[in-house]
């Protein structure tokens, strides 16, 4: 489904990713582990077209994403839930969600999609006419996920969904993402600790200093505590 080969990318002159290769298969939940500042966000931003790669190749369902604009990449079905949620603060929750269905194909189905999102996140239905900037941290995270689901996504990329949330909310957010994955959407999730791999991830990649240093199934990774401890502390 998603295939990243020898990807090199960065900001301005400085290279952050040094030949990263990874793969997400149909229906899989893949976790990208790595400490802060080692390139997880850069990798996701490069896949979604916000950063141009300087070398390497990104393919999705046979299409080459590395030449496409962010809009074309969304249209192809790769949708990125950014770190920090980035809601449209002065739009209502409903308007935020509608913007998730901006592209024409998704726009035509916005009513059904809205129902699905409201079903998954009932709190968004309650808040639908509130401005996004008035939401709590947990609600904002739900809104970011819901907004991503309004598109015709085949692969959802989620960047650190636990960031800045209280522990009980973190559990809920991961449960929701697991449900989304179970419903058939592939998920690529970036995280900085291994707490949520068990029961969630099919496979795990370990990213350090802009390179993949280890990969394996969730079971293999969890057995190798020494490795995880060494990289993630």
């Amino acid at each position, binding site marked *: 489904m998603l295939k990243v080969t020898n990807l090199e990318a960065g900001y301005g002159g400085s290279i952050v990713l040094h030949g990263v290769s990874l793969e997400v298969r149909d229906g899989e939940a893949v976790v990208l582990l790595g400490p802060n500042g080692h390139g997880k966000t850069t990798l996701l931003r490069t896949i979604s077209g916000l950063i141009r790669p300087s070398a390497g190749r990104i393919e999705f369902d046979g299409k080459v994403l590395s030449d496409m604009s962010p809009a074309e990449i969304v249209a192809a079905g790769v949708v990125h839930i950014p770190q920090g949620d980035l809601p449209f603060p002065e739009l209502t929750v409903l308007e935020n969600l509608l*913007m998730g269905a*901006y592209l024409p194909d998704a726009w035509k189905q916005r009513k059904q999609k809205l129902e699905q999102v409201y079903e998954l996140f009932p709190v968004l239905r309650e808040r639908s006419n509130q401005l996004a900037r008035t939401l709590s941290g947990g609600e904002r995270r739900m809104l970011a996920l819901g907004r991503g689901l309004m598109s015709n996504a085949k692969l959802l990329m989620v960047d650190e969904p636990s960031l800045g949330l209280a522990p009980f909310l973190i559990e809920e957010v991961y449960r929701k993402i697991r449900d989304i994955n179970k419903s058939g959407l592939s998920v690529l999730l970036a995280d900085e600790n291994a707490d949520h791999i068990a029961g969630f991830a099919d496979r795990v990649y370990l990213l350090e200093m802009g390179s993949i240093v280890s990969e394996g199934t969730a079971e293999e990774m969890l057995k190798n505590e020494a490795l995880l401890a060494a990289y993630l502390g």
Partner: protein
Amino acid sequence: MEKLIQAIYGGIVYGSIFGMMALGLTLIWGALRMLNLAHGSLYLVGTYIAWALVTLLKVPMVPALLIAALGTAVVGFGMQTLFLNRILGKPGWDVGSLIVGVGVGMALDQSILLIFGPRVKQMPPLIPGVYKIGRVVINYNFLVVVAVAVISLVLLSIFLSKSRHGLAIQAVSQQPDAAQLMGIPTRTVFLIVMCISAALAGLAGALLSTVYQVQRESGANAMLMALVVTIFGGLGSVKGTIWAAYLIGLLQSFLMVYLGAGTALPGVFLFMMIMLVIRPSGLFGLGEAQRL
């Protein structure tokens, strides 16, 4: 009583026109974070297109207004595609966009001078005739100007808050990164905003050409008032801009009627300074002006 009616009436007329001009400025600020210094020149383009159509080509008023708005939108389109797109998203956008504004503005002003010459020109009114309330003279032409301005402001507000593309403009203004991740093509949105903004300026210019004499200095005046209104309302805020337009319009009109025409501009500026001391981000401004 007559003075009061005169003042309110004048305020609504000024406010409507300020609103059209200022809304264009504020839309561009919201989406592109650019102060479009060519806005007054775009107003002038609208004025002269309307004048040329009506007096030289004998085109009827209504199509002339529409063509003036469209023609100015085309100039805005050119400004965006030829110049602004080249520096968009690159370092130095703040200063670069200001310079583009000044440059395009000068080029437009001087082209108008070359084509139409320095002579002051006169447009016929949209609808001739007056209505009298006591000694207050209500000009039918002014009423039409107000109606057209209000209708276009209302239509634009509905477009921005209800339609897919209008919401996308707001989304890009508030959070451009997230907008891109939703598949919103930001450059296309910028182009749409520039065309709408230019069309508004052109329409305002065309409308006002039926009220004032057609002359080259009117662009700078219109730009100045639009700037006062946008700063007052909070740059980037549509709601604030519309409120501020009518507030400033009424203020100016009341000063003119009660204290004399000479006090209007100084009074407006004094008011703006006091306002900025009390509320530096404007009437509805939200700090870094995120609202649109």
